[in-house]
């Protein structure tokens, strides 16, 4: 069996940057990228808005310092200040590098990269390519990886991190096209598998596969997760699918109405109205719905985002994407009807605990991108900072792994490990199994949205946690009906569900324990931030199917704790 120097798990922005940088650092290394979908289809492509870097092209007086401060303040002071500093200092260089290798950024008249304002930033520092920023960045990285001859294993699904009492051996994956279980012996492994916000299922803006697989695999192998309770909600998701209606709709003057025809934001933000900050608007919509002033439907409760008063011309010229989206996915033309919307789970701040070069506690194992928690976003990430994170820390992890891979001499993955996986998978076909994954998945999403959602209380969270435990029990009876080997998506969806269940238990547990409100985490029974008791990271370790919880200090720097006000 050949041994790889680096196996990158995940072909999104973080994974591809890591692979590209590792090839650049040492072209002789034997590097593989495994990805459950073709890398160019990764969820990075969904990012429309842009990526932050203090290039000072649009605002000449912008500085890296200002970016650092915005990031720390935005995080509600839970970000590690050294990590936030790395993020913002590396930013201009990394955006220029992306530009240099061909990413098509939108331009200013002088030919430099254009930048626009974005939420929570003091200056217009968000670099973009029209409304397809993530898509174009992902394509550029994928193309450069092809150019450099990276070995891609497309449609391979990671099952397990193989190690011997904490000594890395590699990973075990399922070849989706053939059903074979394949060992990847490797000196190092970089997790770059993206976020876990899809556990909220129909109440999530994420792709179907943003199921936190890497986090769950690392967690089960004994690597701690951090700050899992922090999940960001976006105020305007489509009712049926949770898909995102971008802020542009409200920016152009859209109104929010409840079922009594009341423009309810007047109660919550009389001045800013619909243009209040994301978390405030989300909480306001949620309050309306909870107090019975939302509309009801087969696909859940919702309120209206009304654009009709803006007129057909403006909608067609300035908001064509949003119009298309609501016609495609709700069957509603906003020129004629209001759009049914509801807040939607959007981004996962928590993830695999890693240092500023992506190192985890297991030697040779790294994490980068949304699946990692470095932590630069703390309790709340700023728009435009997550694309930046995946690039900066993807690159740093790729470099570190390339420099350190030779230090490790992994022992081979054994046949019995493969057999165990084989047996485990076959077990799902057993005839005494009767539960359907689709039902558990929907119940999980609903449970999380109802009990571990935007507003949290002890009672709700206890229910939410118990429901997860109950669903985990039922999962043991889930049946995979497709017994074939080739492209068995029935099996993949069941395996993804298992990962969501394991992680959602940590999300609910973390939310229950954290008795304060900070960033995205709102406890109605503890409405203020409590720095004395809770200015710390939550840590989750896997102990025999149970969770061991501990905490870790936040790395401070020159910015003192302050109240977060906008």
């Amino acid at each position: 069996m050949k041994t790889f120097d680096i196996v990158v798990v995940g072909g999104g922005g973080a994974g591809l940057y890591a692979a590209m940088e590792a090839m650049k650092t040492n072209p002789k290394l034997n590097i593989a990228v495994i990805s459950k979908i073709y890398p160019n289809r990764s969820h990075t492509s969904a990012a429309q808005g842009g990526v932050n870097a203090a290039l000072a092209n649009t605002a000449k007086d912008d500085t890296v310092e200002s970016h650092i401060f915005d990031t720390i303040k935005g995080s509600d002071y839970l970000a590690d200040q050294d990590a936030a500093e790395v993020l913002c200092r590396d930013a201009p260089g990394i955006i220029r590098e992306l530009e240099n290798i061909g990413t098509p950024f939108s331009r200013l008249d002088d030919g430099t990269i254009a930048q626009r304002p974005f939420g929570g930033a003091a200056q217009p520092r968000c670099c973009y390519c029209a409304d397809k920023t993530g898509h174009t960045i992902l394509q550029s990285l994928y193309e450069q990886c092809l150019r450099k001859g990276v070995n891609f294993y497309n449609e391979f699904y990671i099952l397990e991190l193989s190690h011997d009492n904490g000594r890395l051996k590699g990973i075990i994956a399922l070849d989706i096209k053939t059903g074979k279980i394949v060992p990847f012996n490797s000196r190092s492994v970089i997790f770059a598998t993206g976020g876990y916000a899809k556990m909220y299922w129909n109440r999530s803006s994420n792709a179907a596969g943003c199921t936190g697989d890497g986090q769950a695999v690392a967690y089960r192998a004994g690597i701690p997760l951090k700050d899992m309770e922090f999940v960001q909600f976006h105020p305007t998701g489509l009712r049926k699918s949770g898909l995102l209606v971008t802020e542009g709709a409200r920016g152009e003057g859209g109104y929010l109405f409840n079922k009594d025809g009341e423009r309810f934001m007047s109660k919550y933000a009389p001045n800013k109205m619909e243009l209040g900050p994301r978390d405030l608007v989300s909480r306001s919509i949620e309050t309306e719905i909870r107090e019975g002033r939302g509309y009801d439907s087969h696909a859940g409760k919702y309120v209206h985002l009304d654009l009709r008063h803006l007129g057909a011309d403006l909608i067609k010229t300035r908001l064509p994407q949003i119009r298309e989206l609501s016609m495609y996915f709700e069957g509603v033309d906003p020129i004629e009807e209001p759009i049914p919307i509801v807040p939607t789970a959007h981004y996962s701040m928590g993830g695999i605990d890693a240092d500023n070069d992506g190192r985890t506690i297991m030697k040779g194992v790294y994490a980068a991108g949304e699946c990692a928690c470095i932590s630069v976003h703390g309790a709340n990430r700023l728009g435009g900072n997550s694309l930046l994170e995946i690039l900066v820390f993807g690159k740093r992890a790729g470099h570190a792994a390339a420099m350190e891979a030779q230090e490790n001499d992994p022992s081979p993955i054994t046949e019995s490990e493969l057999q165990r996986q084989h047996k485990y998978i076959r077990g799902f076909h057993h005839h005494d199994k009767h539960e359907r994954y689709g039902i558990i998945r929907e119940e999980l999403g609903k449970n999380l949205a109802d009990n571990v959602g935007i507003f949290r209380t002890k009672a709700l969270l206890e229910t939410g946690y118990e429901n997860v435990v109950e669903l985990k029990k039922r999962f043991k009876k889930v049946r995979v009906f497709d017994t074939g080997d080739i492209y068995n998506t029935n099996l993949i969806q069941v395996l993804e569900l298992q990962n969501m269940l394991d992680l959602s238990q940590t999300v609910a547990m973390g939310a229950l324990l954290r008795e304060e409100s900070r960033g995205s985490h709102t406890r109605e029974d503890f409405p203020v931030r409590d720095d004395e008791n809770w200015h710390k990271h939550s840590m989750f370790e896997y102990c025999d199917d149970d969770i061991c919880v501990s905490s870790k200090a936040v790395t401070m720097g020159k910015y003192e704790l302050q109240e977060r006000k906008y």
Partner: protein
Amino acid sequence: MKEVKVISFKVFRYNPQADAHPYHDTFEIPVEKGITILRALDYIKQNIDPRMSYRSFCHAGICGSCAMTINGATKLACTTQVWDELKNCVEENLITIDPIKNFTSLKDLVVDMDPLVEKLEKYTGWVESTMPDKELGKTEFRISPEEFKTYDSATDCIFCASCVSDCPLMNYDKDYVSPAIILRAYRMNMDSRDSASEKRVLQIADEHGILDCRQCNRCSFVCVKKIPIVDAINHLKQEAVKQKNQGLNMLEEKKKISP
């Protein structure tokens, strides 16, 4: 006011481990207004037949996974409304769903995409920057908004392969470079940061190349991102003809010199 119709879906099925030949299965399900073809397939998979396989990921028209032949035309399942499709049905309320054309089915609606990805490599589907590696990240190239405009629309391509599915040339020459790859070549060649345009033109002008295209315009017509692919083809075709002629002249020259 919930509007619901009962609709049948006639879906292509093939599992090479079990079936000697492909066949079609028909599923009858209730569909509310506003539901996409992909969500209808999800409903069938979740409630009727979990064995049915198809690719899907973002559900938002950006990842390019779910191109299918719906009522005979190639479309993204996730951006196609079931109710809109009813007017394209041959038999009332019966929607047919097949894999994209010009690819081999691995299982049901899932096709083997590797031949197309291999062409991306064969035809230099990346920018070869004029900037040396060690200079990267130090300064920006200056690119005019006008230059950006020349390839803006081409960078919308999500590689869903709808154009490949409907290209009549692909039908009898699987090795044909394909519209998606020509579009990439165009996008790279218009970029002033790139240094490989001549190489690329030579590659696509070779056998199974761009000169075989008869400009039927199908690719632009089916493109789910409405990219005018045929304009890119026209542009590169002229380049290719120019280079080919130059090449021929050079050959002639050579013949003259070496008796």
